[in-house]
């Protein structure tokens, strides 16, 4: 009965719709902010996970990559980016769980999805000149992408490391790095 009471006290059934919308927009903004400037309270971010950020970032990235792909491969590139992001996130989570991490599937997908944000910025920076003028030289692309890669890994390490035993942090982070590096290869070596 006590537990029931506790659940009843949480009452959001009568709230106006704009409150619902605002709450979700706020949590998305809050998380993006924490990815850009990694800081201490990772647990608060992890507790209320959402998949809006991962979905939008994934769509943005897939759009940008598919526009610079050859015509007959546009659809394939687009679908592949989608599969790689979600299945990859799932595999990294599985690895973290096997290593004794106490993270649920959705939390982990949420974190990995949000931590793509720096790489999405990199894609955007590279995509603008490629789309309107000409492709950038690899010597310019590579540093941009590598800086953002380090940023992504650093941000996701801050989140994931808090939930995996200390001695296994390296093992948990390594596949995360791979998860982002495959994208780096896509961005850097894709030519028009």
């Amino acid at each position: 009965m006590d537990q029931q009471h506790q659940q009843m006290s949480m009452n959001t059934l009568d709230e106006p719709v704009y409150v619902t919308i605002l709450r979700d927009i706020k949590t998305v903004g809050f998380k993006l902010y924490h990815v850009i400037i990694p800081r201490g309270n990772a647990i608060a971010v992890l507790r209320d996970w959402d998949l809006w950020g991962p979905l939008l970032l994934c769509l943005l990235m897939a759009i940008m990559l598919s526009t610079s792909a050859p015509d007959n491969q546009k659809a394939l590139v687009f679908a592949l980016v989608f599969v790689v992001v979600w299945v990859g996130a799932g595999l990294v989570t599985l690895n973290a769980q096997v290593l004794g991490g106490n993270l649920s599937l959705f939390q982990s997908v949420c974190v990995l999805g949000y931590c793509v944000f720096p790489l999405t910025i990199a894609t955007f920076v590279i995509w603008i000149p490629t789309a309107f003028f000409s492709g950038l030289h690899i010597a310019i692309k590579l540093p941009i992408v590598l800086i953002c890669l380090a940023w992504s890994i650093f941000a996701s390490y801050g989140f994931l490391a808090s939930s995996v035993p200390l001695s296994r942090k390296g093992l948990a982070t390594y596949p995360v790095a791979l998860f982002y590096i495959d994208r780096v290869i896509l961005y850097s070596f894709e030519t028009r």
Partner: protein
Amino acid sequence: MSGDTFTLQRIEHDTYSPFHDDDSSIGVNNDPIQTTSDQQQQGAASAPKHPVALFFHFFFKVSAIVIYLLASLVGLSFVIAFIVITLCAAFDFWTVKNVSGRLLVGLRWWNEIKEDGTDRWIFESLENKSQINQHESFLFWVGVIGAPLVWILLTIFSIISLLSLSFGWLVVDVVCLALTGVNVIGYIKCAKDARKKVKGMAQSYIVGSIVNQAISRV
């Protein structure tokens, strides 16, 4: 005392849900003791109280399925169709989970993650079921259960035609099936939980009224 039995009926009178189909509403309709507020609610029961919520409950679902079916006929490019369908499915998921569920059937589910990584379901349900419109409730469940059934069918079709079509459409199917499926699971759990709560409330009410009677006789 007659007033008491009436409220008891009120508590037991549940809204439409796929897990029981007793016609308790007839008993309430023919009940001679009705307060004016109840009559107003009954009058409003025929007209939808939340037409906007009802519209959006179906709008995103139907547009996702229609675009999926018509994309190749109209000649829409796969990338654009993929984006539009996925966004429709995501908006539909959000609408059903956060808005139409609580307005149309008075239910809402949350899945919270505890600190040890296991998840915990939290269910909210309206205590006063008389606020819920029977037709709205029926249409809500039609949408929630119907959408994943349609996507299961479409997924089967794309698996069968995988050899001739690109596998991209299968990705669309899986995304939409996952998004609609989560809502079905959430709301079925939530409806079961709500029924349990109603039963518990009715039982505690009966016990309470017996105790009250005993006290008044003493």
